[in-house]
């Protein structure tokens, strides 16, 4: 069986854990419990065993620990569509990834699409797409685009 390691990366509290849990266990919680270090979950997608590394978000105390990225076949860059700075920091986080493991396949999740105070405009989305990334406006809460997001990254790691 093919096994693929994929890392969830992004600023703190953007919904990396929520997206993973929605996809793997179909659960969602409003309560914010920050991830310490990394939590590893696996899920079977067709002939592939997907191993998702849900990594602690970058925060004011600590940068992303790049050690967790080693061996990853792809990354999911996650941002919070209601917090513009988390979208802006995608570039920087991508640089960290590239330095550590090179140009691995990548998809972008602009999460919390269910919320009112969404503040990402189309120009921003277009500029992300221009970098060759697939961009998904997801909601871990409603489950919108969550399946597509993970299926896409699996598909890209197999190319």
């Amino acid at each position, binding site marked *: 069986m093919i096994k693929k390691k994929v890392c969830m990366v992004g600023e703190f509290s953007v919904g990396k854990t929520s997206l993973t849990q929605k996809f793997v266990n179909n659960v969602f919680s409003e309560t914010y419990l920050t991830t*310490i*270090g990394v939590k590893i979950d696996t899920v079977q997608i067709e002939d592939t065993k997907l191993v998702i590394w849900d990594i*602690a978000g970058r925060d004011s105390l600590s940068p992303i620990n790049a*050690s967790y990225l080693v*061996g990853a076949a792809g990354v999911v860059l996650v941002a919070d569509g209601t917090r513009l700075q988390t979208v802006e920091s995608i570039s920087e986080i991508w640089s960290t990834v590239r330095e550590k493991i090179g140009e691995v396949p990548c998809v972008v999740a602009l999460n919390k699409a269910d919320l009112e105070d969404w503040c990402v405009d189309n120009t921003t989305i277009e500029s992300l797409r221009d970098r060759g990334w697939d961009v998904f406006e997801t909601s871990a809460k409603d489950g919108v685009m969550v399946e597509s997001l993970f299926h896409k990254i699996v598909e890209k790691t197999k190319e």
Partner: protein
Amino acid sequence: MRVCESSSNIKDYGFPELQPGQVIDDAIDFMIGMDVNTKLDLPFVASPNGMSISVSLVPCGDNLTVLISDVSDTTEQRRKLQQAANENELLVERQKKLMAELERASRKLEQKNRQLEEASRLQTSFLSGVSHEFRTPLTSIIGYTNLVLNNLQKTGDEQKGLADCNNDYLSAVQRSSKHLMSLVENLLDHGKLDSDEIVLKPKPNSLKQLIDDVELVLRPLSETKGIEFNVIPPYNETATVMVDDSRLRQCLINLIGNAIKFTDQGSVTVDFNYANDTLQVSILDTGIGISEEDMNKIRLPFYQASGTGKIGTGLGLTITERIINMMGGALDIFSELGEGTLVKFNVHASDLGSLDLDSATRELIKTKSLDILLAEDDPFIADLMILMLKDWNIDVTHVVNGALAVEAVQSHNFDLIIMDIHMPVMSGYEAVLELNRIGSTIPVIVMSASAVEADQKRAAELGCSAYLTKPVDVQEIIETADILLSQ
């Protein structure tokens, strides 16, 4: 990578027991993607049974050693710290966002405030402008009527030559009244601008007549200012065109009137062209021109160009452009401060060929005598209308309210009824209802001081044949009567 050996305590962390020779990443998820040479520290990994472990990969020779240790205690401390820090950061972000929103809202409010102040300033200056505009013709009307009255009191020899004099005075009164009327119409139209109430009523018109009319009204204005006034009619000016003449006249008087108003020296030239069912007008003046700043605001209602010392209602252009658009045309203004102004516009007006409208009507009506019932409570208006209609060989029976009108209809056979709406005892509408009830088929022309469309609708619903707005022009009555009676 395959397992060489393993300690048994890895089961304590929830990992399966490993058999030598087993493929490592089949059994341990975090080993997927690693190889023998990977040297790595993975702090704080959640183990399968939920413990917090630290993992170290240490290559040695051909082998890779994987060290696992329990770090639950430090994890707990770290969790508390990180949770608090992140929650705090989120609060700060939230606060910043709220502050930004607050600022945006207050800026918006400020802007709204400024707009309101500007609007109220414009309204005030508009009101003072309007009162001023009204005062001028009113003063002249009062002054000239006084002069006429004085003349009328003179007797004998004194009276010689006074008739000419009175004529001049009365023409002045008439001019002022017309001007006053157009001011009022402008004001009413402005009220309609927002409510889409302007309705066009195109009818056949002689192009030449229209142009002559406008010239006649405006020439005295240019003469008082001592500027040249050129009107160039189209080569095909004999054409009869389908257009709402009163609206078109309003536009022309507004635009040409403005050109004259803002020109103190030189000339105003109006050039008419008519082709392909379109009337094109260009108005070129050598006046003060329009600054770029004013150009942007000139189409706003109530706007008065600053520093020109000219006063008007400031409504003309707004209404004019609106009417031109309704007539399927467009208005363009080209100007520079000090360089004069060129105003161009076109309106749709279908060509009906060369009909002679005026004499056709006249002959038709003149040949037969008409019997008209006039219901009008205002004695002055009634007398005026009777006098004017007499001239057209029309017999008028006059009553002063609706009830008397109904009575009159029952005892005499009229050709036509002209009915005022607002009358004591029984209003015009009530009378029409009553006439309908008793089965009268005499056409009714309703006449009212209100030009509001709702009134016209009411009249149409009641089956009235036509609706005229005061002050009613006798020509209008004749034309309407002619159309009604030839049906």
